[in-house]
C-alpha cells in the first residue's frame, strides 16, 4: 500500500466530511455473529476533537468530486480545491484496521456526487456489502442516502447499514433553492419516505419472523444547516417537528454554518459560527423529544426566535408563570419535567425517592437538581420557598445575575446576513 498517497487521501476526504455533524453510533442492536469482528450495540465516543465534538465513527467521503454546485459546501463543483477518491478496498481496510485498534465504532460514509446519483449510491452500498459479507464486520455503518438514488439501491443499503441519512441541508425549500440550485427537496424526501416505509414493514415482519433480516436498525437521521439562510428558529424547529412526526426520524442535527466560501448569497467569511443558537436549538429539540413539549410551546408567532441568554425551558417557564409553583413531593412526572433545572434523570430519582420520605432542598440538591433555577418554580418539604410575587422578567434577571454563561468569553451578536 502506498502510505503517502493513502494519508493524503485520508486528509482530504476526512476534511471534506467533517461538516456533517452526525456521529451517533447508538440505537442499533447488531450482535457479533459467527466469531466475526465487532458489534454495534452501544454508542461510544472514542475521542473528541479540539472543538469538543465526539469522534465515534471513521467519517469520510468516498470522493469529493461533485457535479453539484451548492453554495454552502466546500466540495462544490466550482471550488478550487484538491480532489481525491478512495477505492472501495481502501475504505474497507481503513475501517477494519481502525476498528481492530478500538479507535472507532464503525464507518460513516458519504460522498460527493460523481456521474449520477445511482452510480454514487452503488459505490457506497458496495463498501458496506463488502464489509458485511466478506469481512464479517458487525460494527456500525452509517451511509448517506444520495438524493435521487433508485429504490432498489436504497433497499440494498438498508440491508447492510445500521443508519441511513439524507441531509435536508436547508430548513426550508426556499433556502435550498437559493443556495443549492441543482438540488431538489423532493429528491431528498423521496428516499426518506421510501426508507420509512421499509423500516415500518421490516418491524412488522420481525414480529412475525424472528429471522427476518435487519433493515437499518438504527433508523434515519437528517441534518439542517442553520445560520446560512435567514430562517427563524420557529421555521427550523417546525420543519424538524414535521420530519420527526412524519418520517420517524431518530435525530435531526442542527449544524451552525461555518463560513467556508465567499459568496454574496452567504454570510461573510468572517462571521462567527452561531454556536449559542445551535446549542439552544438542540435544547429545544430535546424538549420536544424527551420532555413532552409541543413545538408551539417553545416557538410560536409571538416568539419566533429562541432566547439566546437563557435555555428554552426556562424561557417557556417565565412566559407561563401561572403553571407554578409546583409541589415536588406531589406533582406528576410530566409537570416535574417542566421545571427549569430538573433533568430527566433527576425527575426519575425524585419520583422514586419521594415514596420513602418527603424531599427537602438539601436532598434535591444531592439528587442533581439545579436549585438556583428550580427554586423559583417549586416547593418542597421545607418552610423556605420563594414568597415574593416575582414576574418572569425578574426571575430571568436574578438567574442571569448569578450564573456565568459558558459562552461569556465568546459572546457574539447574531450574525448579519445581508
Amino acid at each position, binding site marked *: 500500500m502506498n502510505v503517502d498517497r493513502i494519508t493524503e487521501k485520508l486528509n482530504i476526504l*476526512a476534511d471534506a466530511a467533517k*461538516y456533517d455533524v452526525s456521529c451517533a453510533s447508538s440505537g442499533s442492536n447488531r450482535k457479533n455473529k459467527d466469531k*466475526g469482528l465487532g458489534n454495534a450495540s452501544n454508542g*461510544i465516543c472514542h475521542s473528541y476533537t479540539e472543538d*469538543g465534538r465526539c*469522534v465515534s465513527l471513521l467519517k469520510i467521503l468516498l470522493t469529493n468530486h461533485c457535479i453539484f454546485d451548492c453554495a454552502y459546501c466546500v466540495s462544490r463543483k466550482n471550488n478550487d480545491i484538491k480532489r481525491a477518491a478512495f477505492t472501495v478496498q481502501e475504505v474497507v481496510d481503513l475501517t477494519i484496521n481502525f476498528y481492530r*485498534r478500538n*479507535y472507532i465504532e464503525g464507518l460513516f460514509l458519504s460522498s460527493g456526487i460523481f456521474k449520477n446519483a445511482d452510480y454514487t449510491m452503488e459505490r457506497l452500498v458496495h463498501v458496506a456489502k463488502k464489509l458485511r459479507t466478506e469481512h464479517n464486520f458487525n460494527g456500525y455503518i452509517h451511509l448517506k442516502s444520495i438524493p435521487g438514488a433508485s429504490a432498489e439501491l436504497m433497499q440494498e443499503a438498508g440491508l447492510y447499514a445500521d443508519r441511513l441519512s439524507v441531509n435536508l441541508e436547508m430548513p426550508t425549500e426556499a433556502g435550498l433553492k437559493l443556495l443549492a440550485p441543482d438540488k431538489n427537496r423532493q429528491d431528498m424526501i423521496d428516499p426518506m419516505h421510501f426508507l420509512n416505509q421499509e423500516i415500518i414493514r421490516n418491524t412488522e415482519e420481525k414480529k412475525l419472523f424472528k429471522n427476518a433480516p435487519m433493515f437499518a436498525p438504527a433508523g434515519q437521521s437528517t441534518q439542517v444547516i442553520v445560520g446560512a439562510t435567514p430562517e427563524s428558529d420557529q421555521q427550523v424547529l417546525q420543519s424538524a417537528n414535521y420530519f420527526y412526526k412524519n418520517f420517524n426520524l431518530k435525530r435531526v442535527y442542527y449544524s451552525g454554518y*461555518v463560513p467556508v466560501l465567499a459568496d454574496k448569497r452567504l454570510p461573510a467569511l468572517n462571521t462567527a459560527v452561531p454556536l449559542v443558537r445551535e446549542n439552544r436549538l438542540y435544547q429545544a429539540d430535546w424538549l420536544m423529544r424527551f420532555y413532552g413539549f409541543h413545538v408551539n410551546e417553545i416557538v410560536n408567532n409571538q416568539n419566533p426566535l429562541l432566547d439566546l441568554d437563557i435555555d428554552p425551558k426556562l424561557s417557556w417557564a417565565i412566559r407561563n408563570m401561572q403553571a407554578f409553583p409546583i409541589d415536588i413531593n406531589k406533582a406528576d412526572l410530566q409537570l416535574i419535567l417542566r421545571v427549569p433545572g430538573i433533568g430527566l434523570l433527576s425527575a426519575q430519582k425524585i419520583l422514586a425517592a419521594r415514596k420513602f420520605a418527603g424531599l427537602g432542598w438539601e436532598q434535591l440538591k444531592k439528587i442533581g437538581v439545579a436549585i438556583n433555577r428550580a427554586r423559583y418554580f417549586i416547593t418542597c418539604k421545607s418552610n423556605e420557598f420563594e414568597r415574593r410575587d416575582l414576574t418572569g422578567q425578574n426571575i430571568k434577571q436574578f438567574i442571569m445575575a448569578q450564573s456565568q454563561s459558558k459562552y461569556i468569553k465568546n459572546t457574539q451578536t447574531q450574525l448579519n446576513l445581508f
Partner: protein
Amino acid sequence: MNTLVYDGTFEGLLTAVFEIYERKLYPVKLLKGEWRSGALFEEIIPIVTDEARAGRVLKGLRKKLSAAGVQRLYISHMAEIAGEDCNVLGFIRHVFDSDQNIEEDYGNKYVMRLSEILKMVRREKHRMEAFVRFQKLNDGTFYAAIEPDFNVLPLLIKHFKSRYTDQKWMIYDTKRNYGLYYDLHDTQFIEMNFDELSKPVNVIAAYSEDEGVYQNLWKNYFNSINIASRKNTRLHVRHIPRRYWRHLTEKI
C-alpha cells in the same frame, strides 16, 4: 468509636458487618489494610474474613435487595475508592435496618452516595471502553495499557469479549499491575513482569510492521476532522481529561 480493620475483600466487608451486628459495635470506623498497632489509644479490632459469616450476610442482602441492587453494591466496593468503606457500610446498615427495599431511597445520604459512586465507576468503565487503544504486536495480539482511576478492569470483560472475538487481545492495568487476556476462546486475568520487556530494543521489536502506519493514519485523521473556527479547549479537556492522554494514540 471502634475501629475495624479488614482485608479489603468483599467477603471481608461482609464479615465486618456480621461482627458489627453480632457484637453491637456501633459507632464504628472501617479501614482497609494490615492491622498495625499504630494509634496508641484507639481500640482496633482486626476482622478475620470468614466465608460462612460473609455468606450469611450476603444471603440477608439478597433477601432485602434486588439482584441488581446486590450487584451495584458489589461494584461500588470493588472499585476500591479510597475512604468510601464507611459509606458502603452505612448503606448496608440502612438495608438491614429498614423493612422495605431501600435501593431507591435517594433522600437517604448513603443511598445517594452509593448512587454517586456507581455513577463515577460506570463513567470510568465507559471511558475505558472508549479510550483503550490497541497496538498490534508481532504475534498478532492486540495490546493496550490503561491506568483507570478506579478498579474497573473486571467490568470490561463483557464488552471487549463480545466485540473482539477474532483477535487475541490484552488490556493491562499498569497502575494495579494486572491485566486481562483473551486467547480467542476465553478471558483470564494475568500478571506480567515488564522489566525485561520494557527495554527500548524489545519494545520496538514487539510491534507488528504496519502498526506505525495505522497509528499515523489515525493521528492524521484526528487532525483533519478538527474545525479550527469552532475550537473549544475547555470542552475538549472536559471530555478527555489530561490524565488519559498518555495512552491515547492521537494525543501523544
